[in-house]
């Protein structure tokens, strides 16, 4: 196995594109190293992207933020402005693993690990984040919801790296929330995850919303019907009931060691409602 730690993104792309065997990107390593130790993957080349400064920064851009793919959860939490603008997303990234893990784990890695249960991905999708990919053929932008196709399967071409996420500018009275269900309180993987981002007008009516569910299908979902259920409402009882139903209708989960189909569908609705109410409360104060 070869280990490389280039300091430019182009060098990283070149290494990855040129590897004939199995190449893997190392960001925080909280998934990759575990998989390597337990013999799940044995890469021929590991490209460490933590030395690439572009991938390690949070910058303000176009009224929003550009977050490098290799920025850790802990760094997101300590950023001067991000936690206020995107509390739900920052929370989602900081639900991953333990305090030690959060000091290493990154949103880019969380996305590219290709798990339908990744906590930060529904947060990013709800946020309307766009990922910038860099590959042998240059740069391109993709909405986060279009990146993961199926478990361990991404829309990335050979040699392509997720470089950063653009979080759009926030109108006034906007906020977000992310909730996940786990049987414990931490150190667990989502049985269901739900991110909600919304904007209120001065009267408190929801003018825009995005709802995303994790761990209830082969990939994290953007649930447009769930968003429609609350747009134009003040999240009254009827709207929330519609939101719950839409969230449940979107679920295509499996029975596995972490939960049953029935349970996941039930809880998806509950979390969607609870997350929407938290986002609403935050938006009122934003």
């Amino acid at each position: 196995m070869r280990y490389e730690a280039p300091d430019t993104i182009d060098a990283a792309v070149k290494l990855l594109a040129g590897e004939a065997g199995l190449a893997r990107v190392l960001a925080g390593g909280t998934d990759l190293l575990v998989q390597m130790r337990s013999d799940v993957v044995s890469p021929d080349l590991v490209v460490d992207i933590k030395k690439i400064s572009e991938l390690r920064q949070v910058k303000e851009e176009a009224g929003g933020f550009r977050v490098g793919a290799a920025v850790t959860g802990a760094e997101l939490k300590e950023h001067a402005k991000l936690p206020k603008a995107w509390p739900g997303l920052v929370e989602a990234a900081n639900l991953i693993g333990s305090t030690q893990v959060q000091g290493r784990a990154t949103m880019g890695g969380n996305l590219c690990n290709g798990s339908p249960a990744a906590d930060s991905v529904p947060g990013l999708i709800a946020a309307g984040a766009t990922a910038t990919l860099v590959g042998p053929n240059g740069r391109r932008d993709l909405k986060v919801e279009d990146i993961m196709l199926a478990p361990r399967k991404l829309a990335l071409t050979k040699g392509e790296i997720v470089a950063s996420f653009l979080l759009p500018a926030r109108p006034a009275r906007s906020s977000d929330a992310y909730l996940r269900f786990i049987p414990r309180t931490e150190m667990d993987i989502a049985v269901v995850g739900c991110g909600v981002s919304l904007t209120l007008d001065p009267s408190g009516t929801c003018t825009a919303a995005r709802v995303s569910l994790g761990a209830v299908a082969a990939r994290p979902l953007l649930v447009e019907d769930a968003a429609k259920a609350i747009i134009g409402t003040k999240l009254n009882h009827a709207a929330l009931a519609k939101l719950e139903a839409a969230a449940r209708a979107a679920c295509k989960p499996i029975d596995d060691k972490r939960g049953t189909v029935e349970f996941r569908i039930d809880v998806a609705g509950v979390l969607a409602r609870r997350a929407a109410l938290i986002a609403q409360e935050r938006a009122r104060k934003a």
Partner: protein
Amino acid sequence: MQERVKKDPEREFRVVGTRPIRPDGADKVTGRAKFGADFKMAGQLVGKVLRSPHAHARIKGIDVSKAAVLPGVKAIVTRDDFKDQGSEFVPAGEMLVNYRDVVRNVLAREKALFEGHPIAAVAATSEKIAREALRLIKVDYEVLPHVLDAVEAMKPDAPVLHEDMITAGVTPPPTKASNVAKRIEFVMGDIQKGFKDADVIVEREFNTKPVHQGYIEPHAVVASVSEDGSAEVWVTTQGHWIVRAHCARLLGWDISKIRVTASEIGGGFGGKTVVYLEPLALALSKKARKPVKMVMNREEVFRASGPTSGANIWVKIGAKKDGRIVAGEAILKYQAGAFQGSPVQPGCMCAFAPYDLENVKVVGYDVVTNRPKVAAYRAPGGPISEYAVESVVDEIAEQLGLDPIEMRLKNAAKEGTKAAYGPKFGPIGLVEGLEAAKGSPHWNAPLGKNQGRGIAAGFWFNIGGETTVSLQLNEDGTLSLMAGTPDVGGLRASLSMMAAEELGVDVAKVRPIIADTSSLGYNFLTGGSRSTFSSGMATVEAARAMIKEACVRASKLWEIPLDAVTWEDGKVRPAGDNAGKHEAMDLGDIAKIAGKTGGPIVGYSAITAHGAAPSFGVHIADAEVDPETGKTTITRYTVIQDAGKAVHPAYVEGQFQGGAAQGIGWALNEEYIYDDNGRLENPGFLDYRMPVASDLPMIDTIIVEVPNPRHPYGVRGVGETPIVPPMAAIAAAVKRASGVRFFELPMSPPKILAGMKAVKANGGAKATT
């Protein structure tokens, strides 16, 4: 909040009952302490185990030829390297082991009986080479149908694990082999008559899942066999003399040739009372002529080391309107895993032990299944049967409109009660525990929304056994203490305190170690909550022997008869005026004169500790159930238990809290999940969901002290009872919080949510799941 309820303080203690810093504390918090995987030897090889991918398969052939010629491979062992053993049961903690089965558990012979069953072991110069060698070993399996569940395994058409297993305890003996190793029965009085007298009868069936001890430190060993056949072993274990005995037996070596040193232990809870890697490491080391180190990974720990049984339990209890229980009956079917020897016998004995009953019948079945062989886990067998009985007691109390504490007080065992399993209890602290619970702030606190409170009692026997302690008086008057029961929960602290108490010295002057098997007389393992009791008893005896010797030395120095010398307040003194005027001497003074009055002074005690006394506990649990997700949060928890005498109360409380924490996991989320092929799907802490710290409330404790009259300081073992009551206490709390009574563990969120939905669908009718 930590409280203590005292009874009968027979003597005023100076050291016992205080909370000094433990002698092993600094090394543990700085990372210096050496656990099993921390031992290293120059030139050591890496040992790895090839394990069966099948739950049940005949092994038609093992071809190691390719692996053997891989550069770097130094030794390979298979079933052919171990002589077969006859069927013979020997005690291991509170469990029995049979060498016929131990040799097969260490390396499969005719069949692989569970996924993870060791097939071969390799020693190589690196981990990578060892792994590659495992891949090169070709095993010819004939895959057989498998069975995981005890009830399924008892069916006539179930796949049979052992073709020669005829159920014991049945007359006439069955003619056909089955998976039922043994049927046992305990009967007292006449249950038919008892049930006839009952005003209310509740009859329920329960199911529990196997749960793992979950020790954080995996099994680890380094073995080094010399050219002359003598061997050294460093290992994480609860009983290094037991490791020595098992290895000597399996390898056919003299016991004296094997010297075993126990490392610090990162949790055992009963699971480190058996051998897995040790005989393999020794056999590999002998073949390779190099030291061999073997460390299990977490996955191996889950797939191949013993959890406790999963079980099916049926309980029927009859009571009078006033709550007096008139009959109790139970049928227990315990999974043993691949080899017989589930803890169903202690399960039967414990089932009704907290109660003073006239009519009891308990029947137990020990059933083999294609799972790893069960090992001891804190009060083996007790938590399972007592969960079922206590749950029915709770339901009867509810039906009769009685307070669950009053119901238990009405039936509680006390001094003189004849237990259903035979003996009469001596002084015990169940009533005191129930009274303490009744008066506790927790029991009387208000509950919040979606919250419920449950209570349950629990019992464990506790044991004594062979024990040796050596206490040396050093030249400067300090003391070195050697014990042989590995320290799993603060033992060294407790032993130095007892020595200091007896000898009148400062506790910091006593430095304890756990000695190796060649340095000290035989010690049975740490298990059965015996170490503070037994090694404590031996420590007190060793200290008294030293005092006696100190008196002898003073009499020599003072040239007065021995009976003119006395020991008082930590000093040797002339017994009276007639003895003459001599300056009293403490142990420091005695140490100075040791050489000229007869030589080094050593207090020694080699005993079989008798008189272990049971410990009863009462737990109060508050559960909050999320009505929309079924998630249960334990919001408050109190453990009340009789310690006899708490030598170091902080470590007694630690045992109480640890048992409760493990019980919370058992009750709510821990379970083994198998796929259709009998392969474990959750062999790791991510999906085998033990509670993490943030899942638990502060677990409050109340230490009850009803002294054990047969221990010099009144000590009872406390380590096991705390895992007995939690499951029933939490099930009762969940019932009151959710409105649904559950009869299956774990009470995981999907089950609770489904149960609550079923109640709603029935229009609020009482549902049971």
